[in-house]
């Protein structure tokens, strides 16, 4: 029978940067169903092609930029990019997403993924069209930030708007800053685990993908259009997503503050400082405080991504992308900055330099606290950096990107920098022992994500916030500090995010009941896929990324928060409550529920078999293990 490629381009673009050879491999039907795309496909490639000796900066490392079956179709938010690689922060697996138009344009050119290997002898960018793919000289782009890079490529290729999708590294990636990100289409960032440093090491400045003339076919187009409307209706009306539909993640600031999860001044407090106009931080005011205009991803109807113009203050008139909650936190509250106009500016500086906003928040907040407490002197840094000094934070970005002065140390991220400085300074830094940087919340009141960030194998969270937990027999709501139910929830819902990350879709537009999401995938691909198969596919990717990490020597002994990350809050809603009293219990529950071995960290042979990962049993458990 012919291998129909409904919902897929059916080809994987391969680029060997060492030799300059470019070719494409088929993405066969059986592989598509087993790995789906995105995170699943990336996990397979990482496991099969990156040996333990190939560290993040080794030419044998792979940089997988993949999309999935929903990209380029009319389901909301489906321009998705998933980056999978061995990353610079953990030196282990990475699974990180951005949206925009990457996935849609790539499939219209005829590819489901781009896989880079080797290392280019000179700086290049990859130009992808529906007729040819070329590595081109990128020397004219060097030193440019990621917005300037996109503008320069639009001028070079004479294309505007979404006719060209550009994902690039800024100066941070060029300097191999460990928390460098890949940024694309003005404001979409695959930020985790130093994927931008990997791209920089390979000397790839940018990927420029034209909106090709090919098409994407759906197996049942009418059913797909109906499923897309069903998803849209759900996002607009469900109480759990209505706020996202209206304002994206802007509501997070006040909501998380209410539960003690807004990270303020490097976890030193959980209450708004005196004199802050908290009205400004309500979602509608955050949006209306700027001149703004929708800037949506492929096929998306969420009122989420926006471009905006700063209305007042020192940066008046500048065009920025509306910060996500993560930006308001990392470029704002974590460093004590409380003026939205200034925070929006700093957030875009980070996007343009292409740094992970979360790690920057922890790093900059740490420097500020250490200076305040006298652990770092003005001389160490070269200037005085006080809480909330946005201009100074901007100066810090420049130093990090150029690795100038203390910027050279800070470019290694807060874990390595604080360990190097040592003494009491080391105890103020927020990180996990495996090198993952937490997202921009105070996880001391969100135990699910603290556990998830420490046990994850992606260089970030693995499960993410609970989405419709009742579908999996869990209670609709649990206390965020109830150790056993929290651990059970994180482990039970594990897999859903990896499935979503395999679809080429956005994390926010896939926040619908799993059956509805699966209906769209079924209509697109023609598979009779239901939620159990979908969850199995996600858990397969999660288990394989963990197997990859174990093979690289990253084991359960590193699944711990830093001292500050798991410290006891001194004020706010959960003052005096410590997760550490329950840590071992939570790990016990998590491991048992996930079907992983508590001592070695390995997925058990039974778990691997159930996930059709039989060929992973021997490499993990030894040749004698019962396959």
């Amino acid at each position, binding site marked *: 029978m012919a291998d129909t490629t409904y919902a897929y381009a059916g080809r994987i673009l391969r680029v060997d940067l060492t030799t300059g050879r470019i070719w494409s491999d088929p993405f066969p039907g059986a592989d598509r169903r087993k790995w789906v795309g995105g995170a699943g496909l990336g996990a397979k490639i990482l496991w099969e092609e990156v040996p333990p000796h190939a560290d993040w900066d080794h030419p044998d490392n792979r940089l997988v930029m993949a999309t999935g079956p929903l990209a380029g179709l009319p389901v909301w938010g489906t321009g998705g990019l998933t980056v999978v690689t061995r990353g610079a922060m953990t030196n282990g697996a990475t699974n990180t997403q951005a949206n925009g138009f990457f996935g849609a344009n790539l499939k219209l050119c005829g590819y489901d993924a781009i896989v880079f290997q080797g290392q280019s002898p000179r700086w290049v960018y990859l130009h992808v069209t529906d007729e040819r793919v070329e590595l081109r000289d990128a020397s004219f782009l060097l030193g440019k930030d990621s917005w300037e890079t996109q503008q320069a490529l639009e001028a070079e290729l004479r294309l505007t708007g979404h006719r060209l999708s550009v994902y690039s590294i800024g100066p941070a990636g060029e300097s191999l800053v460990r928390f460098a990100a890949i940024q694309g289409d003005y404001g979409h960032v695959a930020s985790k685990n130093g994927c931008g440093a990997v791209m920089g090491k390979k000397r790839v400045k940018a990927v420029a993908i034209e909106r090709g003339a090919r*098409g994407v076919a759906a197996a049942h187009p009418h059913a797909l259009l109906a499923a897309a409307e069903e998803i849209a209706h759900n996002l607009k009306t469900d109480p759990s997503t209505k706020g996202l539909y209206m304002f994206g993640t802007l509501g997070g600031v006040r909501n998380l503050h209410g539960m003690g999860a807004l990270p303020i001044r490097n976890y030193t407090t959980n209450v708004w400082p005196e004199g802050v106009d908290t009205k400004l931080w309500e979602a509608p005011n955050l949006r209306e405080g700027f001149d703004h205009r929708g800037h949506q991803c492929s096929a998306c109807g969420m009122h989420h991504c926006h471009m905006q113009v700063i209305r007042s203050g020192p940066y008046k008139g500048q065009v920025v992308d509306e910060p996500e909650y993560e930006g308001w936190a990392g470029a704002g509250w974590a460093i004590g900055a409380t003026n939205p106009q200034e925070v929006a500016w700093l957030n875009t500086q980070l996007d343009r330099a292409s740094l992970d906003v979360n790690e920057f928040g922890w790093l900059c907040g740490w420097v500020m606290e250490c200076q305040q407490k006298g652990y770092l002197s003005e001389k160490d840094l070269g200037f005085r950096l006080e809480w909330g000094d946005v201009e100074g934070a901007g100066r810090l970005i420049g130093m990090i990107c150029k690795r100038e002065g203390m910027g050279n140390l800070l470019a290694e991220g807060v874990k390595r920098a604080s360990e190097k400085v040592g003494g009491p300074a080391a105890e103020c830094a927020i990180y996990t022992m495996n090198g993952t940087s937490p997202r921009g919340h105070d996880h001391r009141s969100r135990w699910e994500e603290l556990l998830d960030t420490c046990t994850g194998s992606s260089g970030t969270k693995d499960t993410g916030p609970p989405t419709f937990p009742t579908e999996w027999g869990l209670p609709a709501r649990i206390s965020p500090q109830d150790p056993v139910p929290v651990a059970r929830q994180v482990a039970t819902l594990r897999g859903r995010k990896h499935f979503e990350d395999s679809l080429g879709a956005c994390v926010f537009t896939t926040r619908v009941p799993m059956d509805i999401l699966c209906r769209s995938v079924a209509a697109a691909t023609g598979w009779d896929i239901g939620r159990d198969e979908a969850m199995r596919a996600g858990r397969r990717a999660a288990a394989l990324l963990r197997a990859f990490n174990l093979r690289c020597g990253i084991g359960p002994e590193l699944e711990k928060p830093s001292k500050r990350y798991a410290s006891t809050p001194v004020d706010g809603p959960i003052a005096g409550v410590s997760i550490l009293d329950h840590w071992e219990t939570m790990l016990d529950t998590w491991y048992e529920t996930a079907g992983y071995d508590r001592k070695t960290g390995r997925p058990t042979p039974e778990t691997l078999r159930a996930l059709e990962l039989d060929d992973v049993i021997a490499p993990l458990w030894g040749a004698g293990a019962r396959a």
Partner: protein
Amino acid sequence: MRVLKIIPERCTGCMRCELACSYEQTGTFQPSKAVIRVSSFEGHTSYAPYTCPQCAEAWCLTACPVEAIGISPAGAKEVADDICVGCKLCTIACPYGTVFYDPDSHKAFKCDLCGGKPACATVCPTQAILYVEAGTEDWLASFAAERALPAALAGAR
């Protein structure tokens, strides 16, 4: 008659109209075959879809040497594939650049209002594309005047 009225201020550049349009045209999601196109302005800060306004004085129809362009029951100027010889005169005659030539089929193609239920208007998530009753057949003139007014005022300042 009903016409496609576009409110560019509402467009967010999601390109969903292109996807839906191309599906109506070809059966696959292939924006290169869409007869509605979204352009960006001022970098990525604003977008606007544009398509055939079905103008009263249709130059495409007048220019066609083989009379392949007629008026459909929905009021759309429509290309009859079996008559079109692919001479491209209509694409040159159109002042809006909304008649296209398909190198695969060697035919001209353009918006046919999807037979009276335009897919672009149906799927637009921000109601930037409306399918509305127009007062007169020459609705475009009043539309243009209405849009031009602020610009004229700006010029007078």
